[in-house]
């Protein structure tokens, strides 16, 4: 599916253990979010809840390749990115419960997961709004001679925003170490890419800014990983931006309030047949890299982790009402 042979293909060596870990991370995200839906119906989680189900291969293909000092800017559909980056499932669940042991102390909720230690600069709920921040983070690293990469996730809907174009231009003009990841799931909420863009090939938009790019199958975790490895190396070595367009699909509704009038059931089913977890699991089974019983054990462990996460969230304290005005400004004695 490579549309642009922007950089030399490099054969990645990856062990069975690493592959199994990729499967585990994708399954954790899937099961975690399935639990979220349950808890949403039970009224434990409120606000907007945007599920990543179907798109897991993108975050999981990229995140393990990053170093601890690299920086991540994500969108409001970021549970998967946060989990894949290693933010604990308990802290994420507690955040959705609005508890003070959440990763944003309950001030952000599902759309605004943050973690300073993991260099996770948030779920940003303004489409395209995170992109200038990623440019600035990379500018700071460039000026401080830090060899870090900033990875910026956004959807294809963001590509119509001015902030996308302003950010692409600045990053390319100033040669900033940003890896832009367009998670192209074909729909900006309910509006199809073909109904909202005159040019639907997003790599061409990068090209017009003189930025190297590559389109990949975002349903295939190994393809994402291979391409991401090349792209990250390019960004780090050259200190230049790169755009990866991952073709993917959201299996669930946009949020919990979406009757899905804009796409056919057949289309959804066709994409589900290409599901990133299902296909990768079959591949590993076929190659005898994992057994059915090992998968069952993995599922059990994930189930236990999610139960623990829910218990952690349930046990969390609500912030006292007297703290309402906290964290609007930085206390000056700190």
């Amino acid at each position, binding site marked *: 599916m490579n549309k642009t042979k922007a950089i030399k293909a490099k054969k990645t060596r990856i062990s069975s253990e690493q592959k199994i870990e990729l499967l585990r991370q994708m399954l954790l995200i899937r099961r975690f979010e399935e639990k979220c839906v349950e808890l949403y119906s039970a009224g434990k989680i409120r606000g907007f809840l945007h599920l990543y189900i179907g798109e897991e291969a993108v975050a999981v293909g990229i995140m393990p390749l990053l170093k601890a000092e690299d*920086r991540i800017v994500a969108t409001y559909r970021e549970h998967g990115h946060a989990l894949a980056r290693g933010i604990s499932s308990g802290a994420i669940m507690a955040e959705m419960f609005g508890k003070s042991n*959440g*990763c*944003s*102390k*309950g*001030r*952000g909720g599902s759309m*605004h997961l*943050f*973690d*300073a230690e993991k260099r996770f*600069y*948030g779920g*940003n709920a*303004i489409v395209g*709004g995170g*992109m*200038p*921040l*990623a*440019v*600035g*983070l*990379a*500018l*700071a*690293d460039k*000026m*401080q001679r830090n060899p870090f990469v900033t990875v910026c996730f956004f959807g294809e809907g963001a590509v119509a925003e*001015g*902030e996308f174009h*302003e*950010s692409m*231009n*600045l990053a390319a*003009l100033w040669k900033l170490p940003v890896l832009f990841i367009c998670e192209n799931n074909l729909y900006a909420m309910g509006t199809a890419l073909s109904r909202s863009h005159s040019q639907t090939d997003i790599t061409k938009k990068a090209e017009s800014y003189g930025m190297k790019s590559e389109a990949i199958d975002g349903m295939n975790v190994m393809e994402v990983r291979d391409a991401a490895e090349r792209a990250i190396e390019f960004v780090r070595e050259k200190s230049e931006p790169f755009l990866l367009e991952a073709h993917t699909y959201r299996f669930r509704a946009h949020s919990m309030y979406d009757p899905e009038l804009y796409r056919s059931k057949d289309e959804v089913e066709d994409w589900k047949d290409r599901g990133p977890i299902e296909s990768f699991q079959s591949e590993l089974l076929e190659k005898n890299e994992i057994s059915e019983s090992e998968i069952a054990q993995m599922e059990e462990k994930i189930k236990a982790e999610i139960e623990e996460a829910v218990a952690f969230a349930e046990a969390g304290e609500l912030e006292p009402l007297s703290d309402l005005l*906290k*964290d*609007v*400004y*930085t206390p*000056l004695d*700190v």
Partner: protein
Amino acid sequence: MKNGKEITYREAVRRALQEALLEDERVFLMGEDVGRYGGSYACSHGLLKEFGEERVRDTPLSESGFVGAGIGAALGGMLPIVEVMTVNFSLLALDQIVNSAATLRHMSGGQFSVPLVVRMATGGGRQLAAQHSHSLENWYAHIPGIKVFTPATVTDARYMLAEAIKDPDPVFIFEHAMLYPTKGKIKENGNGFNVERAEICREGSDISLITFGGSLSKALEAAESLSSEGIEAEVIDLRILRPLDTETIINSITKTHRAVIVDEGWKTGSFAGEISAQIMEKAFDELDYPVQRVCSYEVPIPYAEHLEKLALPQANEIIDAVKEMF
């Protein structure tokens, strides 16, 4: 504080920028035409030559992009000073300002601060018509999470910037465009300099004239004229719109029992309205007359000189408003 020599407001801003760049290598200046052109109001003249292209960065015309990049760079360990040519252009960056700069610390539960400074020109009076003349400081002062400085004097133009850079949160500095060529004596930065308190620029016992930014000189002019007619006005320069020093205002009202607020914003929804409400809430019993406001008329600022002059607050209107109250 001892008095120094006279310099222009523009030169005060330039020296403040130069000092900031000299004092901390994390500081850099970024904006449209801040480098080769020397700043659209010449505030960064010579700085590109002195500090180089990495620290004095000309940007493309991408207000949202470079203000957002300033926020990101602040998160990444730098201390950016972003210049936006005028307050009208800053509207193109409002998403980054309102949705990111002001919210990141809160949304992250206190994990990330944004030590960003954004400077911009504001205000009318130069026949630049309805897309270069507005005073929207009030919109910014509405937003929790940011701070708003309005230097009205050469001293504040010279020294507020350093305080803004020291501040761990985003600070927006509004420089009234009519002030750049004006001259004043600079008070040296002693221990008394602060960015917490409003300043009483002229003491008086009969009425409080409360103002900020480009309207300060008009209020002072009105006060001098009123003095010759036996009315002693106290003139308060707010200096900082958020967080607001309400105490200085209330103390003055407690002394004078009358107030006129002068604000170049449109009267409806103006910052003057906020001050008036605070006086009502905290000092209603002290008032001998309803609080009055002198603001811009409810019209986009016109080009024609006579109409622009009428649209903006002027000293004679302040004088008339005060006389009505006695």
